[in-house]
């Protein structure tokens, strides 16, 4: 069955430290992959997407993600975290034309 796994429910990092959020997917065909961020009380904002081509994808707010087919992973990274990055992050895979499968989210806490 198709699924998306975000193994880390919570992650805490210090401001200025690097960040990697993990995402593993299970999907038979070539996946369309997304990372979204949700700030408290807000909806989801698209950070980046992968459809095909270069496996390293650049997004907004200094985020990037790397698609690794052999590991079925699409991990999100940022070299230096800012306090404003504290939020919940969701990985998603598109199944078919309309439907997404979302992971359960990783909540990021940033220490000053």
């Amino acid at each position, binding site marked *: 069955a198709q699924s998306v796994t975000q193994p880390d*429910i919570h992650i805490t990092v210090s401001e200025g430290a690097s960040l990697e959020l993990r995402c593993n997917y299970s999907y038979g065909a070539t996946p*369309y992959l*997304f990372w*979204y961020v949700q700030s408290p*009380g*807000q*909806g*989801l*904002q*698209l950070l980046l*997407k992968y*459809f095909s081509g270069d496996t390293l994808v650049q997004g907004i707010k200094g985020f990037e993600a790397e698609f690794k087919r052999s590991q079925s992973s699409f991990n999100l990274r940022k070299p230096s975290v800012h306090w404003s990055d504290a939020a919940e992050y*969701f990985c998603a895979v*598109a199944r078919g*034309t*309309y*439907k*997404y499968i*979302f*992971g*359960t*989210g990783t909540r990021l806490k940033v220490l000053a």
Partner: protein
Amino acid sequence: DVKVTQSSRYLVKRTGEKVFLECVQDMDHENMFWYRQDPGLGLRLIYFSYDVKMKEKGDIPEGYSVSREKKERFSLILESASTNQTSMYLCASSPADRDNQPQHFGDGTRLSIL
């Protein structure tokens, strides 16, 4: 920028009431979606619509219905609200496109059923 507007940020209703959640998008998108978001469960699709008057069930449609009379508006209806429908509800839209264009989300409606 795409704007998806949900009519209420917070809503409190009573068990058994009929509840309407409204969503409007301003980018002429064909596809619209309703999700519910619960801690530890991520987002789960309730219903989606790919055209006016067209709808399809998502993963958890029980207890819900939808209406799409105009392209820009997609309503979620709780026919008889129950306490287990207390949740955050998110509306999204996307253009009709073979390349799986990203969904754009509203800010959500936090619904409490007492």
